[in-house]
């Protein structure tokens, strides 16, 4: 009979045994060594029936299919742009995936210039090193105005909240447009800089208190207190 050696939400280090026996299955951040399941990352344990997963708390952004990311145009070639998306590799944005039709041989800087920021979606990943982006779809656009802040990618789910509850609260209370990229970049645009500052403060507060239960209610209080 298999034996579980850790509890849900325990902090584990690489090389720590999580469970004995064949009854449990390793998922992301863990692996099987003969009879045992071992953690391969520093993070929190998450147990779903028989599947044991580690949620990493540090480290770079790992690209996933269909993620919305905020990228910066780093370079361009004949047929597309190379975009820095804050991970180990640069992503490709081909001209056929741009938001409008572009002729071959057109001057690409007319559409996206160097250092321009874009909201894009990851449409293809081939064994990690090649990442394709697309700008076709709702909510994918160039970024003009506003400000960008960067947070740890693993904290992004807390900024969004359950079904977007947290980010909707922020939008509502600060009158800002907020776009959260899965790669930890967040774009904030408000009517004035005070609103933007308020949203920034709130997001940094969520990042540092991401473990607190009932954070949405706490943030509601925080934002309403700021309003007065």
């Amino acid at each position: 009979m298999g034996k579980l050696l850790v509890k849900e939400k325990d902090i584990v280090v690489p090389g720590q045994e999580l469970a004995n026996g064949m009854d449990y299955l390793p998922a992301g951040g863990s692996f099987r060594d003969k009879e045992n399941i071992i953690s391969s990352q520093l993070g929190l344990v998450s147990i779903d029936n028989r599947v044991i997963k580690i949620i990493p708390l540090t480290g770079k952004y790992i690209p996933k299919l269909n993620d919305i990311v905020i990228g910066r145009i780093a370079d361009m070639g004949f047929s597309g742009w190379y975009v820095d998306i804050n991970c180990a590799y640069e992503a490709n944005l081909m001209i056929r995936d741009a938001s409008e039709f572009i002729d071959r041989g057109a001057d690409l800087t007319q559409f996206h210039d160097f250092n321009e920021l874009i909201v894009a979606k990851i449409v293809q990943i081939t064994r990690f090193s090649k990442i394709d982006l697309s700008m076709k779809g709702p909510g994918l656009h160039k970024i003009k105005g506003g400000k960008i802040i960067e947070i740890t990618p693993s904290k992004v789910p807390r900024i969004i909240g359950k079904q977007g509850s947290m980010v909707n609260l922020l939008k509502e209370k600060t009158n800002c447009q907020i776009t959260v990229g899965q790669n930890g970049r967040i774009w904030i645009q408000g009517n004035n800089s005070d609103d933007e500052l308020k949203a920034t403060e709130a997001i940094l507060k969520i990042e540092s208190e991401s473990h607190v239960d009932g954070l949405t209610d706490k943030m509601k209080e925080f934002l309403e207190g700021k309003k007065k």
Partner: protein
Amino acid sequence: MKRNDGRKHDEMRKVEGKVGIIKRADGSAYFRIGDTIAIAAVHGPRELHPKFLQNPERGILRCNYDLMSFSVPERKRPGPSRRSTEISMVTKQSLLPVLDLEQFPNAVVDVFIQIVQANAGTRCAGITAASMALAHAGIPMSDLVSAVAVGKINGDVVIDIDKYEEDTDNATDIPIAITGRSKEITLLQLDGEVSKDELMKGIELAKNGCDKIFEVQRKALIDFIKEKKNE
């Protein structure tokens, strides 16, 4: 048998570890054993340039070990030397077996180890700090690596020799790195003369010592996460 600083033959100097000391690095750690202090910073995984050094099958690891110029009694000339090149190489080889770099083809993970203060056992302190920094950088690894030097001083096998002991006549210095869970040896160097029995005794001592260092590493990593939570 009496050691210079009054320790027992199986007693290490005071050990201390800390994670997350360098903000701009992806991972960093501090490790101290007695008067030997090492800091390590990890950058990456990131794309490797020039391109001909890339490996499309797996990411590569680059280690850089160096003494700071004020870390030793007489000023050390800054810059790489024959000694630091060798230690960088053995550090890399002692860390590679635990790292899973197949997830990062064409990429590089850079490890920079600086010895802030040296009193023997610097390569072991460096490896220990680097292993913590790699875990902090979120690089998948099957184990942590702990390292300690054992040696033979005046015919006795002792653990964690300091500079005074290292400089006695006929001293033998054996740095050993051992993985935390599977207890595999990833580094074993030997400078001097020992018999087979003495070497085996030394390895046993190192295993016990590395268990203690592993606990310190584990605690430092967990404390870092807890501290971040309580901020």
